[in-house]
């Protein structure tokens, strides 16, 4: 992701009311994660795995924050236990803002299977999801995500496609 898109997306995220972010480094998200970590508009926590990050976000939401975890596609696989046993069981929302490794156009062989199962994985967890390909779509998408989080009390997923996360 380039710096301009990172700033656009980070600003839109904050403007939509998100103010607590858990992050674990991912190469296509570095610029966004760095921007969010430096921003005064977010309380940021660097975590050791995405399941832990989702659980920390759950605690933040219980305390009144509007949380987002910024994670790689494989991190969603790691998060499934926390998302089901904590968020879905108790009814706790968190936004998952992720890459789409293995999505259309990804050239890495090791990501292919993860990307192939991602839509079914999210659907099986009853997590509403939208794939976004332009930073300009983010402002309205984040607002919609927050509305759905508040009404459903369930996690919501926004997946940034390969074109967006690899744009120079």
């Amino acid at each position, binding site marked *: 992701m380039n710096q301009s898109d990172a700033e656009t997306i980070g600003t839109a995220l904050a403007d939509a009311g998100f103010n607590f972010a858990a992050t674990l480094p991912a190469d296509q998200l570095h610029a966004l994660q760095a921007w969010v970590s430096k921003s005064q508009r977010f309380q940021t926590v660097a975590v050791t795995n995405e399941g*832990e990050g989702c*659980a*920390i976000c759950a605690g*933040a939401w*219980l305390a009144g924050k509007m949380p987002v975890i910024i994670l790689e596609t494989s991190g969603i696989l790691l998060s499934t236990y926390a998302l089901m046993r904590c968020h879905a069981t108790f*009814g706790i929302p968190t936004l998952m803002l992720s890459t789409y490794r293995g999505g259309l156009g990804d050239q890495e062989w090791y990501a292919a299977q993860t990307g192939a199962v991602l839509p079914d994985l999210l659907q099986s967890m009853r997590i509403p999801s939208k794939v976004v390909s332009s930073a300009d779509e983010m402002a309205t998408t984040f607002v919609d995500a927050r*509305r759905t989080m508040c009404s459903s009390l369930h996690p919501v997923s926004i997946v940034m496609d390969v074109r967006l996360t690899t744009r120079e």
Partner: protein
Amino acid sequence: MRRSECLKVLAPMLTDQLVVTNVARTGFETHMAIPREGNLYTMGMGLVTPVVLGLALSLPHRGVIALDGDGSILLNLGALSTVGNYAPQNLIAIIFDNESYASTGGLPTATAGKTKLNEMAKAAGIANAFEIRQIEDFKDLATKALAGKGPWVLVCKVQSEKPPVEPKLMDGRENKYRFVRYIEQTEGTTILKPSVVGRKDS
């Protein structure tokens, strides 16, 4: 030392702290010994201390307590590193270490072998990490933890047992709503914002 003894000692010390408990008997025994609106019971294994960390970082002026277990924290040891690095002064993790998966048959955990959770917590950067074997020591350290700056990790070596417990007539969702309403009331804030016909948030 028994977990129920620790909970009885802890009960009169609590004021407005937020408490999140582990699964199974830790949740049931807490509900019996310290029934209060500021408790969230039966969080999944491996998730107790991370959820409490999220609470602690978001409400830094308020005490938060994890009533965790050895099997649970072993499932997510990275959480100790995150607690150590962010070092919230308001966080207390009480880990009831019975060296076994007591609720599911009693097979040993790693702490029945060579693993020492208090030393792992110290190595993760949590200076106030102690192993406790006597109830008097628990009372002393719990008192200090509630009054002093954390984070604290109190590893309580307790018996592996399955004492009879009363049913907790409340599921996780009702518990969550009551827990959040308690936070809303005591913090003077609004957390639950259900959809309302005609309302369009920005």
